[in-house]
């Protein structure tokens, strides 16, 4: 037990010292003369076209939320699929239950589509 921890401690110490030494060496040996050109994004004189933080259309948000809901639907259905064969004694009841669950979600999806959640115009 202890020897295992000793190895890990040694490894940690080595990595900290090694990385620290590399940082210090690059500071000490490398030249550090910043100019405005070097401070630009591409560091080689290619001018920027626009800001990096693009704003996305709000439509993506709706699609993402719809995706999230159906993602979680999968999480809820998956365990049933795994255990279905071992619950043969009331398999139809289980099928019916999960059918109701999916039907309710489907109703929600139909509502969202009718309300224009995935209209792109």
């Amino acid at each position: 037990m202890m020897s295992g921890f000793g190895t890990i401690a040694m490894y940690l110490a080595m990595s900290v010292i090694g990385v620290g030494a590399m940082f210090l060496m690059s500071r000490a040996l490398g030249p550090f003369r910043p100019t405005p050109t070097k401070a630009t994004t591409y560091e080689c004189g290619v001018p920027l076209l626009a800001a990096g933080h693009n704003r996305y259309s709000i439509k993506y948000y709706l699609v993402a939320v719809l995706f999230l809901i159906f993602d979680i639907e999968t999480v809820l259905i998956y365990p049933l699929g795994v255990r279905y064969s071992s619950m043969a004694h009331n398999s139809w009841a289980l099928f019916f239950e999960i059918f109701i669950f999916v039907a309710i979600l489907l109703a929600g999806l139909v509502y969202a589509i009718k309300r224009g959640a995935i209209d792109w115009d």
Partner: protein
Amino acid sequence: MATLTHYIILSSILFGIGAIGFLSRRNALILFMSAELMLNSVNLMLVAFSYFRADVAGQVMVIFVFAVAAAEVAVGLAILITLFRHVREVDVTKFNILKW
């Protein structure tokens, strides 16, 4: 060998980080993430209990908590976006027209 106590302590620490983050941060999105961290630390604890008690119920609960968390995300982000249209800001200290 990790015992049940380790898991409880770990998830309590995560829950505490979430709670402290919730109380100390000012960005509404980060508050949101902190609340999710709290929920997920509970998930970790439920799975640990489920494993050590050899009882599958804990894992079933985790799935329900996932579903609840996803619904929370959907509603919460919608509210945040409608508010953002008014304020153009996600800093909760700027949401201050309602006071005393």
